């Protein structure tokens, strides 16, 4: 669709670059462009350097600056656990829904409905996270409270639902569900684009062989889109890991939280980002450095996830926007 052909770019180069670099206007303009590119280099280097410089004192901070944890790794591990748990809940819920939604838009819905559904997905992506947080805790959470009590009563033998159930809905499961709603549009948008790119001939060939619509999707669309689906999921994971406000507002716990697999109890794990958001405004001294160090940990985790997502795409040689 958007093809840049390197051949035609190269063509004017030998003549233009020799004559044009001599003009002052060209030199200035080129300088500006290179300068802007270097600003990006500098900014990212700055992120890594400043966070490290400000974070290092946090590694050896006083226990009371670390919510009572003896050392930084105990502190960070508890938060990392909560971060991963919330993100994984979000992903488990959001991935099948997004793929279903993307399939509706690309293959099931009539074209007119599909385009307005696409617009709806964009709308979902545009809602600010703090509004999701407000909705999650004042509207969504309290309504989940009943469900949690029901889960505790009927499925309490599963450790995930051991309870005691939080009637207020301030649980890691609520946080994960709100996160799921937030990453839905991201995964859907990428999946939809890639499903729509599946060659029509593959699909028609499958249908001509007598495949049902689902068999066509399974044997023609999914194999083609697999790498795109994987990387879309990982980009969604990256977003879920770093999402702050929704979790900070839904979870009541300040501090590092508890390590538990119990999803519906009042004792919750906490996430790195939410912990920073809740504690930073009142923090001072060592505590600030500890929080910045935990931010560095979050940066590294999201970097790895995003990097892996791009690597999957790069290996399959497909183009991905966003």
């Amino acid at each position, binding site marked *: 669709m958007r093809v840049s052909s390197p051949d035609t770019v190269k063509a004017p180069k030998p003549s233009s670059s020799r004559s044009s670099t001599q003009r002052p206007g060209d030199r200035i303009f080129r300088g500006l462009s290179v300068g802007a590119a270097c600003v990006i280099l500098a900014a990212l280097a700055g992120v890594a350097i400043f966070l490290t410089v*400000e974070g290092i004192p946090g590694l050896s901070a006083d226990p009371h600056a670390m919510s009572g944890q003896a050392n930084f790794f105990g502190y960070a591990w508890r938060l990392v656990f909560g971060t991963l748990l919330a993100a994984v809940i979000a992903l488990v819920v959001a991935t099948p829904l997004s793929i279903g939604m993307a399939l509706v838009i690309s293959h099931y819905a009539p074209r007119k409905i599909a385009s307005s559904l696409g617009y709806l997905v964009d709308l979902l992506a545009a809602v*600010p996270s703090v509004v999701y947080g407000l909705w999650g805790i*004042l509207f969504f959470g309290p309504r989940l409270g009943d469900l949690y009590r029901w889960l505790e009563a009927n499925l309490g033998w599963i450790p995930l639902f051991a309870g005691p159930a939080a009637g207020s809905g301030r649980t890691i499961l609520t946080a994960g569900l709100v996160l799921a709603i937030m990453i839905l549009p991201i995964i859907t948008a990428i999946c939809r684009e890639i499903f729509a790119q599946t060659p029509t001939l593959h699909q028609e060939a499958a249908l001509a062989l007598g495949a049902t619509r689902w068999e066509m999707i399974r044997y023609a669309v999914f194999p083609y889109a697999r790498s795109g689906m994987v990387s879309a999921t990982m980009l969604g994971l990256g977003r879920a890991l770093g999402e702050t406000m929704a979790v900070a507002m839904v979870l009541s716990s300040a501090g590092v939280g508890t390590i538990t697999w119990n999803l519906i109890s009042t004792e919750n794990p906490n996430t790195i980002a939410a912990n920073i958001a809740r504690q930073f*405004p009142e923090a001072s001294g060592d505590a600030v450095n500890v929080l910045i160090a935990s931010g560095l940990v979050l940066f590294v985790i999201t970097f790895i996830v995003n990097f892996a997502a791009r690597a999957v795409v790069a290996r399959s040689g497909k183009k991905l926007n966003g």
Partner: protein
Amino acid sequence: MTILEKSPAPEASDSLPLTGPRLPGFAPALAAVAALAVGGVAAMVLGAGVVAAAFLAIVVFVVVLPVWSAAVEGRRSAVDRLVGALVWVALLAAVVPLFSLLWTVISNGAPALSPEFFTYSMRSVFGDAQGGIYHALIGTVLITLAATVISVPVGIFTAIYLVEYGVKNRLARAITFLVDVMTGIPSIVAGLFAYALFVLFFGPGVRMGIGGAVALSLLMIPVVVRSTEEMLKLVPHELREAAYALGVPKWRTITKVVLPTAMSGIVTGVTLAIARVIGETAPLLIIAGKTDSVNFNLFDERMATLPVFIYYSYTQPGLPASAGYERAWGAALVLIAIVMLLNVLARVIGKAFAPKTGR
């Protein structure tokens, strides 16, 4: 899928039928009605809530249609119908929260709106006295404007470098990679970066509007670069070559031919980028802080912003809490309205200023 009517059945033994048996076209509708009936009965007889009844109806629908299909049409069609039903259920499950959210925000936020809500700050407002979001609006506008002023030149020039100058060289590849990395930076990390940067100059505990702008531009630049790059790549090479052939210098070609052609796309991209960062809370919570007063100076003291105002109206609602919550909903409604307006604006710009083609 056409249904071939079987004409007066010939003896089954001597000719194979061309089509298998199919469910009638109204089968999904019938199954849906049956499912709704089951849900309705559950709600009335067993006293189930609306949500539980709807859930039950969906489960019944997803089970009944494939089972019926399996009995008549065979396993493969049953699976097909099952997936078809599940896919639409997934859509429903994703769209319902959106409408719930919009409805909640509108119905809770609308009562808070009044002229005073937009023109009062929260200075010396206690309890349920009339307060407003004037200070937060000012802060949001100023900080977003400053972030735009920082990111748009950097973003556009970087995109120009990637497309026009550094085709496939090493720096361009590195930049493309780093822009990818920047896209994935969590917003709270951007806030911490701005804090760590400003601490070097102003000492611990620094809070400043311009810091928020720096943090936001870190999130905004990759979006601007991405969209501008895509738009510049769409400009046909014939246009550039025609300009070069006339002896136009490269920089004049870029400013007079390439950029105007791509302008509508670039403006759309920038508008969407603004819409994305205007709702960011976490970085502003960290570096711009919270205040109840109006502050016009980006370079001095704390600055309230709309998202942070929402957050604090919820976490520290004051007494009675309902007044704080109402202000939070009101501000959320205003924020969503701004974001939606920017999105619509971006679409309008994209349509209205699209380059004339066909010449």
